[in-house]
């Protein structure tokens, strides 16, 4: 791997860009590994990277059934924030945000992290109070958060609909250190950095069977042969239940739902922040990419599905929400829209935990929030796999929390997976 630095950029500028090596190897799978991570998305790759980097584990493989960046890593709206309130979750997401802040240097890859502020609009005194509570809780834990009154908001984002909105905007809860990053860069950066530490990234390798022996996983059957790993990690959000049942472990507190996202044609700089609007059943979040396209999304399609394609009623809902809050984008054309399959968990919070099988570890249940979480997800999943002990931040993020009555329900929506946005 050729390092990205000023000298190499200069040198390759003179030699016609011929001095660059490929970003990661394409190794043949070996039959034995110390750790096999199933799922080559952001979470799986970050896990492999931190296993090698923080815990000096060698002989690691990441198995990906498609190609790197082809799953949910390439199907999100790239928003990064840490405005969480539940114990464990706010420390976890704040750590994730801190990792994002240094990720480009850490990976020697520009992930285009942009701390452009996450602006969460509110429309009623009640919503203001509940946001004040949440953002004060965050501040008490060392995360930044502030409330903008209407004048500050108008000065920062003058073109929201302040005139005739059905739900008038009265202010916003803002996290300035939040923002977004380029999703492809993040996943490629982790793949490249993990590979340079010796991790085997094996693409087009689908796990088709799991053989158990004496309470352990003995081997994995894959489309590229049989593999053995001392430790196995699942990081396949969207398809977790399928692998779980392949290992004969029964049911999970997870349903798979699809979430759509949308991209418009590119326009000149128009929106400097991530803006979120959610009131009266509407849900809408938007930012502008560096190419100029507006990237936005809304709610799930509201019914369980494994199809990676969206349905039209939600396109209309999202367009209506867009017009309610940013009517000036009404003439823009959509270039594309797509859907990703989400692990919607029963309380809206993720799982990083040990499992009934002693050499199997689970990373799942990311709901809508997997992208921003991926650095910390990899960090703490690697920590769990290496040390056999959950870090205190994730001590309740296990599968037994439901029977123990310690649900981590950030929204208070109850045991209905589709309601945890």
């Amino acid at each position, binding site marked *: 791997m050729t390092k990205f630095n000023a000298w190499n950029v200069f040198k390759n500028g003179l030699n016609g860009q011929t001095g660059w090596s490929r970003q990661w190897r394409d190794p043949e799978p070996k039959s034995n590994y110390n750790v096999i991570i199933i799922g080559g998305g952001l979470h799986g790759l970050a896990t492999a990277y931190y296993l090698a980097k923080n815990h000096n584990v060698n002989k690691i493989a990441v198995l990906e059934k498609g190609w790197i960046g082809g799953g949910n890593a390439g199907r999100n709206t790239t928003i990064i924030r840490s405005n969480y309130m539940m114990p464990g979750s706010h420390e976890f997401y704040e750590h994730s945000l801190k990792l994002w802040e240094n990720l480009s240097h850490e990976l020697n890859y520009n992930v285009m992290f942009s701390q452009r502020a996450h602006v969460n609009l509110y429309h009623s005194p009640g919503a203001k109070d509940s946001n004040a509570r949440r953002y004060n809780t965050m501040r008490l834990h060392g995360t930044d958060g502030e409330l903008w009154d209407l004048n500050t908001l108008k000065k920062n984002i003058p073109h929201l609909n302040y005139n005739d909105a059905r739900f008038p905007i009265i202010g916003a809860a803002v996290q300035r250190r939040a923002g977004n990053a380029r999703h492809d860069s993040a996943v490629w950066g982790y793949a490249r950095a993990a590979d340079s530490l010796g991790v085997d990234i094996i693409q087009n390798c689908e796990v088709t069977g799991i053989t158990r022996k004496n309470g352990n996983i003995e081997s994995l059957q894959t489309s590229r042969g049989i593999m053995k790993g001392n430790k196995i990690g699942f990081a396949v959000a969207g*398809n977790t*239940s*399928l692998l779980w*049942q392949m290992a004969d472990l*029964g*049911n*999970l*507190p*997870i*349903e*798979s739902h699809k979430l759509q996202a949308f991209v418009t044609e590119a326009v000149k700089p128009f929106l400097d922040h991530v803006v979120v609007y959610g009131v009266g059943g509407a849900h809408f979040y938007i930012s502008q990419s560096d190419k100029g396209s507006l990237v936005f999304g809304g709610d799930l399609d*509201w*019914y*369980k*599905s*494994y*199809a990676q394609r969206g*349905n*039209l*009623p939600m396109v209309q809902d999202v367009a209506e929400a867009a017009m309610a809050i940013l009517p000036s984008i009404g003439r823009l054309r959509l270039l594309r829209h797509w859907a990703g399959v989400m692990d919607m968990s*029963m309380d809206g919070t993720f799982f990083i935990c040990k499992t009934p099988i002693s050499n199997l570890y689970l990373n799942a249940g990311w709901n809508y929030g997997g992208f921003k979480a991926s650095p910390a997800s990899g960090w703490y999943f690697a920590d769990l796999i290496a040390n056999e002990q959950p870090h205190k931040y994730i001590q309740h993020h296990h599968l037994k929390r*439901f*029977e123990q009555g310690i649900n981590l329900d950030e929204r208070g929506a109850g*045991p*209905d*997976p*589709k309601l945890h946005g």
Partner: protein
Amino acid sequence: MIRIKCPYCGERDHSEFTYGGDASINYPSLDASEAEWTEAIFFRKNIKGFQKETWHHLNGCRMWLEVERSTITHEIKSVKPCHPDLQKLMELKK
């Protein structure tokens, strides 16, 4: 758009309905163990393929329906009222 054949109203867009959830859950008796209730409330098979699920015809006849639908293609195999008495009634109407 998914089209659902409501037994009372006929074929309608799925946007008239709200999705309920897994219809295959057998809720245990009130005095069942905590483990059984935890399993029924929080744990799901999360089927990839045809599954039985409930839909509520909210903006129609407001009947709760049991629908057999593929979670891959969204193809619907069968639709019937959830309530057994309504099922019988619909049979008679035919």
